[in-house]
C-alpha cells in the first residue's frame, strides 16, 4: 500500500510546476553558496600568501647579504662576526648575522589551513585572522588583529551553503508540505481516499516519504556537487566521512521541518492558517530563538571590555618601562639605530627589550586568559541553550563539520602560542650567546605546521548537536502522528 501511495504522490508532485521552481531555486542557491564560500577561502589564502611572501622576501634578502658576507669572509680567511643592532649598512657584518634582529624584525606566519569541507560553512572564519604573525614581539599583541572586511558585509553575513541549509531549506520544505493534509481536505479528495481501506497515518506517512525522498535526492546531489567543486582533500576518506556527517545532519534537520508540517496539518486548520502558523514557526526557530539565545549568552557572560583590557595592558607596559628604564633608555629603546657606537650597549638594549616584552607578556597573560575564559563561558552557555532550536543545533554542527568553529580556532591559537615560544627560544638563545647566524641555519628556522584536532575531539563536540536534533525530530514525529489520531475527516 505504501508504495502505491508514494508512487501516486510522487507523480502528482512531479506535475506541480511550483515544485520545479522550488528545486531550481534551491539548486541555484547552493551553487551560489558554494561559489561565494570558495571565493572567501581563496581570499584567505591570498592574504596569507601575500604577507608571508613579503616577510619571506625580507629574510631571503638577509640571507643573500649573509651569503655574500660569508664568501667575503671565506675569501679573506677570517671568522664570521656578530653584527650589532644598528641599521648603518655597508661596513662590518650585516644585520643578517644577528639572530635578535632577524627574529624580532621579521615575522613568520602561522597559517590555519581550511578544513576539507570549509566551504560548507563560513562560521566566524570571515572575521578571524587565519594567518597570525609570529615574531619575538609580545604574543598577546598578536591576538588583537582581525581580518579586514567591509563591516556592512559582515553584518549581512555570508551566503554560504550553511545559510542555504539552515535558513532556506526549511522554507522550501514548508512550501512543499504546508498543505499536506489540508489541501486534500479542501479539495475533497481526502474523503474519497479515506473511504478506502487506508488509514490516515499511512496516507500521511506515504506523503511524507515521497517528499522526503525527493529532497534527499536533491540535497545529496547538490551537496556532492558542492563538495566536488569546492572541497579539498578529496582523496582522504576522512573528508567523505565528514560529508556523510553533513548529509546526515541536513537530512535530520529536513525531517524536523517535515514532521512539523505534519503536526500542524494534523490540527485540522485550513491551508492558509497552516501557512501562517508554519511561517511563524520558521521565524521562531530560525530567527527569534537563536537571537534570543545569543542575547541571553552575552548578557549572562558579557565579553570583558577590550578597552579595559587594553588600558590594563598599557598600564602594565608603562610600569615595566618605569621600573626598568630611565628616560634616555626609553628613548633609545624606541630607536635603536640612534644608540652610540658601543656594540654591546646596543645589544643590551635589545636584551632589555626582549626582557621587557617578556615581562609585559607575563603581566598581561592572566588578563588575556580571563578574557578567553569568559568567552568560553559564553560559548558553553550557547551550547547548553542550543537544544531550544534545531537551527542552533544545526549551525553549531555545521561549524564543527566545516572546521570553522571557535574551538578549532582556539586549538590553533594554542599551537601558535607554543610556536611563538619555539621561535623566540631559537633566536633568543643564539642572540644572547652572540653567535652569528649562518646561511645553513637560515634553512633551519622553525616553521609552523598546524596539527589538526583528532577527529574524536571534534566528534565529541558534534555529537550533542546531532543527538539533540535526533531527539527533537523523534519527538515531533511521534507527536505529529499521535495528533493525526484526533483528526476530523468530516463533520462539524
Amino acid at each position, binding site marked *: 500500500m505504501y508504495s502505491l501511495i508514494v508512487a501516486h504522490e510522487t507523480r502528482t508532485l512531479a506535475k506541480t510546476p511550483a515544485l520545479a521552481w522550488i528545486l531550481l531555486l534551491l539548486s541555484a542557491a547552493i551553487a551560489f553558496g558554494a561559489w561565494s564560500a570558495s*571565493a572567501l577561502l581563496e581570499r584567505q589564502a591570498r*592574504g596569507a*600568501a*601575500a*604577507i*608571508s*611572501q*613579503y616577510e619571506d622576501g625580507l629574510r631571503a634578502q638577509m640571507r643573500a647579504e649573509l651569503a655574500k658576507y660569508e664568501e667575503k669572509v671565506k675569501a679573506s680567511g677570517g671568522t664570521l662576526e656578530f653584527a650589532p643592532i644598528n641599521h648603518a649598512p655597508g661596513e662590518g657584518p650585516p644585520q643578517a648575522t644577528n639572530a635578535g634582529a632577524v627574529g624580532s624584525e621579521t615575522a613568520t606566519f602561522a597559517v590555519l589551513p581550511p578544513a576539507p569541507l570549509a566551504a560548507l560553512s563560513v*562560521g*566566524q572564519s570571515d*572575521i*578571524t585572522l587565519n*594567518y597570525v604573525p609570529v615574531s619575538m614581539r609580545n604574543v598577546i599583541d598578536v591576538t*588583537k588583529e*582581525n*581580518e*579586514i572586511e*567591509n*563591516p*556592512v*558585509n559582515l*553584518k*549581512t*553575513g*555570508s*551566503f554560504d551553503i550553511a*545559510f542555504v541549509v539552515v*535558513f*532556506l531549506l526549511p522554507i522550501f520544505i514548508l*512550501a512543499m508540505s504546508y498543505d499536506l493534509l489540508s489541501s486534500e481536505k479542501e479539495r475533497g479528495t481526502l474523503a474519497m481516499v479515506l473511504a478506502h481501506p487506508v488509514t490516515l497515518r499511512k496516507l500521511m506517512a506515504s506523503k511524507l516519504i515521497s517528499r522526503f525522498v525527493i529532497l534527499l535526492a536533491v540535497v545529496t546531489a547538490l551537496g556532492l556537487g558542492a563538495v566536488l567543486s569546492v572541497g579539498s582533500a578529496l582523496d582522504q576518506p576522512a573528508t567523505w566521512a565528514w560529508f556523510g556527517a553533513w548529509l546526515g545532519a541536513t537530512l535530520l534537520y529536513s525531517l524536523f521541518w517535515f514532521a512539523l508540517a505534519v503536526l500542524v496539518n494534523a490540527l485540522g486548520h485550513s491551508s*492558509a492558517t497552516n*501557512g501562517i502558523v508554519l*511561517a*511563524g514557526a520558521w521565524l521562531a526557530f530560525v*530567527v*527569534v530563538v*537563536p*537571537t*534570543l*539565545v*545569543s542575547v541571553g549568552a*552575552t548578557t549572562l557572560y558579557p565579553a570583558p*571590555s*577590550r*578597552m579595559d583590557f*587594553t*588600558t590594563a595592558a*598599557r598600564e602594565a607596559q608603562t610600569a615595566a618601562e618605569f621600573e626598568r628604564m630611565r*628616560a*634616555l633608555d626609553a*628613548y633609545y629603546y*624606541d*630607536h635603536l639605530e640612534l644608540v652610540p657606537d658601543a656594540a654591546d650597549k646596543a645589544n643590551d638594549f635589545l636584551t632589555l627589550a626582549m626582557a621587557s616584552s617578556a615581562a609585559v607578556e607575563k603581566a598581561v597573560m592572566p588578563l588575556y586568559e580571563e578574557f578567553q575564559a569568559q568567552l568560553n563561558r*559564553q560559548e558553553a552557555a550557547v551550547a547548553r541553550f542550543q537544544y531550544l532550536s534545531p537551527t*542552533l543545533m544545526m*549551525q*553549531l554542527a555545521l*561549524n564543527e563539520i566545516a572546521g*570553522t*568553529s571557535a574551538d578549532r580556532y582556539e586549538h590553533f591559537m594554542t599551537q601558535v602560542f607554543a610556536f611563538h615560544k619555539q621561535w623566540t627560544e631559537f633566536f633568543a638563545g643564539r642572540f644572547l650567546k652572540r653567535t652569528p647566524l649562518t646561511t645553513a641555519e637560515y634553512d633551519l628556522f622553525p616553521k609552523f605546521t598546524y596539527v589538526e584536532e583528532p577527529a574524536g575531539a571534534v566528534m565529541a563536540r558534534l555529537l550533542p548537536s546531532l543527538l539533540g536534533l535526533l531527539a527533537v525530530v523523534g519527538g515531533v514525529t511521534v507527536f505529529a502522528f499521535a495528533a493525526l489520531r484526533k483528526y476530523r475527516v468530516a463533520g462539524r
Partner: protein
Amino acid sequence: MAEASLSRMKAPSLIGVVARKEFTEIVRDGRFKWTAAIMVMLLLTALATGWQKYAAYSAMQTAAQETSNRQWLKQGDKNPHSAAHYGNYAFKQAGPLSFFDNGIEPYTGNLLFMEAHKQNLAISRPANDMSAVTRFGDLNGATVLQVLMPLLIIFLGFTAFSGERERGTLRQLLSMGVGPRELLWGKALGIGGAAALAIVPCIVLGALAIGLLDLSSTADALWGRVGLLTAAYIGYGLIFLFLTLAVSALAPNPRAALIVLVGFWALSVFMVPKSAAEISKAVYPSPTLGEFQAVMKADQVRGLDGVPTAVKFGTYVRELMKEYNVDSPMKLPMYFPALRMQKLEEFDHVVFDHHYNALRNTYMAQRRFQDGLGLLAPLLPLKSVSMGLAGSDLLHHDTYTRAAEAHRRVMVERMNGYLSKAAADLNGVSNSSNYMTADEEVFAIVPPFAYTPPGLREVVTEYAGALLILAAWVLASIVLAAAAVGRVRRAGA
C-alpha cells in the same frame, strides 16, 4: 420628491466605512492578537536591551577617552619623540540612535592606537569576542521592524481581497457600487491602522526614552534624525502594505496570495541582501589584511611614484643643506634626527592616504552597489538609511578613523617639531649627559583627542540615493495596488 431628499442625504465616506470594517475584523481576529503580541514583546525587549547596551557603552567610552587623554599628559617626563611613541588611544563614540539600530558597530573596531610611524587599523571588534551564534543577528528595534513588520502586515492583509473573493462577499461589495479607489484606500487604512496599533506604542516609548535621557545635547539634529527614521520605516511598511493588497487582489485564492507574499518576503529580506553583499564583493574586491599590509610596507620603501623613499629623503637633505648653506646635516640649526623622523613620516603619509582611502572607497562603493540593488528588495536601501540616521554606519566610522589619523599626525608633528627646535644644540652630539627631556607642559601642546560625528545634512547627502529608491518603491507599490484593484472591478471579482 423622495429622490431629491435621497440625494441630499449625507453619504458616509466609503473609504472610512471600508476602513472601519477592515480594522474591526482584523483586531478581533485571533491571528492579529498573537502576532501583534509577539511583535510588541520583541520590540520592547529589543529596545530595552539596546538601550542598556548603549548607556553602558557611552559611559565606558567617555570615561576611557578622558583617562587616555589624561594618561597622555601624565605619561611622565620623557623625550618628546618617546611621547609620540607612547601615543594616545582614540575611542569611538556610539551613534546617537544606535540603541535602535546598532548597524555595523559590532563589526568595527572601537579602539585605535595613535602612535608615531604607524597608521593603525581600529581594533577591538565586538563581533570577534562573541560566539558564532551572534551572527544570526542582533536583537534590536531595527531588525524587528525590518524583518517582522512586513510579515505582520502580510498576515493581516493577505485575505483583504482573496478572502472576500472566496467567501463571496467581494461580489456583493462590488454589486453595491463600491469603487476600486474606496476599496484600496479603505483596506489600506484599516490594515495599516491595525498594524500601527502593534507598533506605535513601542515607537512612542522609544521617543520618550530619548527625550527623558536628554540625548539631544550630544547629537546633531536628533529629532530630525528620529523624524526621518520614522518616515523611512513608515515607507517600508507602506511598501509591504500595498504589495500585500496588490497580490491579494490578483491571487486566485488566499493560499496563493500567502505563498507569493511570504515568498517575496523571504527573498527580499534574506536572500537578496546576502546575494547583494556577495556580488558587491566580487564587483569591488577589497584586500585582505595580509595583502593590505604587504603592499603598504612595500610601497613605503619603494614609494608610490617609483622613486624609493631613501632616494627622496636624500634629495630632501641635500636641498635642506643647500638652503642653510651647510655641508653636513649635523650642521643644520635644527635637531636632524627629529627632522629626519618627521620627513619620513610625511613620506609615509602619502602612502597611507593612498591605501586607506582606497580601502574606504572600496567599502563605500560596495555599499552603494548594494543600495542600487535595492531596486529588487526594499530592505537594502532601508538598512542603509536606518544605519546612517542612527549613526552606526560606515560614514560615522570613517569620520572617527579620519579624525584619529588627523590627531595622530598633529601629535607627531608637534612633538617632532618641538624636539627639532628644542634639541638643536644636540646635533651631532650623542651623549647621554646632553639628553633632552620634556614634561607635561610640552605634551599639552597637543590638544586632547575629541571628534565630531557627521551631522544630519552630511548623512542625508550620503544616503540621498537610498532614500530615493525607497520612495520609488512606495510609489510603485501604490501604483501596482491601484492597478490590481482596478482589475478586480473589471473582471467582476
